[in-house]
């Protein structure tokens, strides 16, 4: 269930960290159907039904309908955020942009009283999401993958949640195991082969994450794609530290990560490369490194070995000061020692006042 406020203001950010500024206008019941396919796609159908807390349906009300239709992209983003941290980095197809289905049924607990109401009619948004670039997929080896589905509504606003969500595992997909987070949330209300259903009466009972381990035989996970094709032209360690020269050979611009592997761990700089550009990236403090890697997205584009014998140049100003001071003191003592030798008493004792 999602709370919609009267104005665009959700947060009062008030030069200040905010509070809710506007009055609630209506709520939206959220019912989702998710179907996983063996090729690593998921089709998500969102069914929305607006209502008042007294239980009056607002389905068909012109202003509300206009709001929801104009906000279909927001709903699409909320679907994508179920599978990723950033909706701009995941591939998807819009199957239904915005449709009105008067026959559909949408369920929710209207006022948090523990009773499910059935609303007739739904506004529908439907997407196909390609999980190969999802940030919530973990390969477990072979055809086995863990797929996390986030309740993106709770993530955005702690008082919102998906009222009803069903998961179908189509032919070819084998559900190995499943769990949900947090553990105090409730488990599925119905389960049968290839199907799980959660009916969430309130936000506290609703999981924040639905986690599935599945065999997806036709799926190849690639992670976030590279933004550019680039390579390391040169990397060397000198008095200025590590200097890496990187060239963007592609016709697009984008970010790369230049990663220095040092005895203390990695040091990384994220750099924007304009198309066709060549840049020098410096790590002033890096005096020893075994290799430099170049990444974009989740793709390692290049690696440049510096070798175990890469020079260690002590350039810290502090060390120079220290060495210079020690040399100076050593010289002073040598002089003092020589002078002292000449001032020795016959007994050989020193007159040097060292106390």
């Amino acid at each position, binding site marked *: 269930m999602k709370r919609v406020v009267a104005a665009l203001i959700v947060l009062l950010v008030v030069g200040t960290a905010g509070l809710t500024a506007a009055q609630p206008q209506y709520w939206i019941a959220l019912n989702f159907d998710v179907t996983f396919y063996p090729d690593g796609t998921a089709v998500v159908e969102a069914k929305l039904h607006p209502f008042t*807390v007294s239980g009056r349906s607002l389905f068909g009300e012109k202003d509300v309908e206009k709001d929801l239709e104009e906000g279909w992209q927001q709903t699409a983003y909320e679907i994508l955020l179920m599978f990723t941290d950033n909706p701009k980095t995941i591939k998807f197809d819009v199957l239904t942009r915005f449709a009105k289905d008067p026959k559909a049924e949408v369920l929710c607990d209207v006022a948090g009283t523990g009773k499910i109401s059935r609303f007739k009619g739904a506004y529908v948004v439907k997407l196909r999401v390609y999980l190969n670039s999802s940030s919530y997929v973990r390969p477990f080896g072979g055809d086995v993958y863990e797929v996390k589905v986030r309740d993106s509504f709770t993530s955005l606003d*702690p008082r919102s949640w998906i009222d009803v969500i069903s998961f179908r595992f189509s032919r070819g997909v084998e559900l190995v195991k499943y769990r949900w987070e947090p553990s105090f949330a409730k488990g599925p209300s119905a389960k049968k082969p290839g199907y799980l259903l959660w009916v969430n009466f309130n936000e506290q009972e609703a999981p924040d994450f639905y986690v599935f381990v599945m065999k997806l035989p036709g799926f190849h996970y690639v992670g976030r794609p590279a933004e550019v094709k680039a390579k390391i032209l040169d990397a060397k360690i000198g008095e200025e530290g590590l200097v890496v020269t990187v060239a963007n050979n592609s016709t697009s611009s984008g970010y790369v990560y230049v990663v220095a592997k040092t005895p203390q761990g990695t040091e990384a700089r994220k750099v924007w490369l304009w198309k066709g550009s060549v840049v020098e990236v410096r790590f002033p403090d890096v005096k020893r490194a075994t290799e430099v890697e170049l990444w974009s997205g989740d793709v390692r584009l290049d690696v440049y070995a510096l070798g175990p014998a890469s020079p260690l140049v002590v350039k810290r100003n502090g060390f120079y000061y*220290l060495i210079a001071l020690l040399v100076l003191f050593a010289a002073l003592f040598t002089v003092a020692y020589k002078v002292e030798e000449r001032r020795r008493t016959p007994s050989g004792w020193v007159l040097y006042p060292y106390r």
Partner: protein
Amino acid sequence: MNRNVALVLLLFVAAGAALAAVRGIGAPSGDFSFTNETYIIEGRFLLVNRNNVSVHDYVYVALPQNTTFQKSYVLYIKPAPIRYMTDEDGNRYAVTVIDAKPGEKAWIHVKYRVEVSGYVLYADEDRARWPSFDMVKRYTVSTGYWDVYNETLIRLAYQVGYADNPVTTARKLAEWVVGRVAYYVNMGRYGSDHAVVYRYGRYQIVGDCVEVADVYVTLARILGLPARTAYGFLLTSHSQKMWLNMSTLGKEGEGLLSHWGGHMWPQVYVPPWGWIDVDMLDGMQPNFGIFSERHVLFGVEETKYYGTSLTSSCVPSYMTLQYVEYNFRGVAP
């Protein structure tokens, strides 16, 4: 024999003097000077059920957090929380329940003890390192409010903030940002794409602390410096009352600032020191690593695409928040 002892002793003294002369050598804690303050914070939130049905309402209460520079204790929350939870960015918050009939009002009372260490960081640029790959990947991503793919902002960031050293980058950005603030209270959140405008022949950052923080975080992330926003309160004195009447809020404009100190500011991550505050609006100075003990932190925004609504002090589900009040009382350093 005695001469040898003298030589050794003097070499020790010499080495010590040399070490002392070299800036920044020593444990990281030696890079900070602290000003401590302890606050007792009493708050109350008035909720009204404006619905014509009874509701069973979960109410989410933001809490002061525990950090390197802040230690927080909940003395009480009434009604007592049913549980404490943690959001995706690691912020703790409380969940309490109120049952209310139509038209019924209800108060939530809270009391916290918060020990704050304001600090000044003496950051030797020679000791600064770029962060690890994992940190850079996690804390430089694009979000709805921090669009690191905006090419205007990319050009701007490289023009005003690029440097080989992360501390230099953080400082240059702070100096640029604080000099371009066109402040007014903004009741929404523009995000960095809309907060930076070009007018009168120069770039300006329009809006309030949220926009300033969003722009700084975006520019830092563009330049590969891990960055996030922190939110909470900035006090003008150690004992202060703050309040908000939600029904008059929209009309107040900057008058709001006379009785409310909710605040947001950026932080950047630079090893070996970790997360460093950069509150440029505290005195309108760059303030990299200068963080007064008048800040009370309630949370951070890190990776969530649309930020968080926990910047609100109190988030009811069905009821309407009518009034918020906090009394801060400085009790001891």
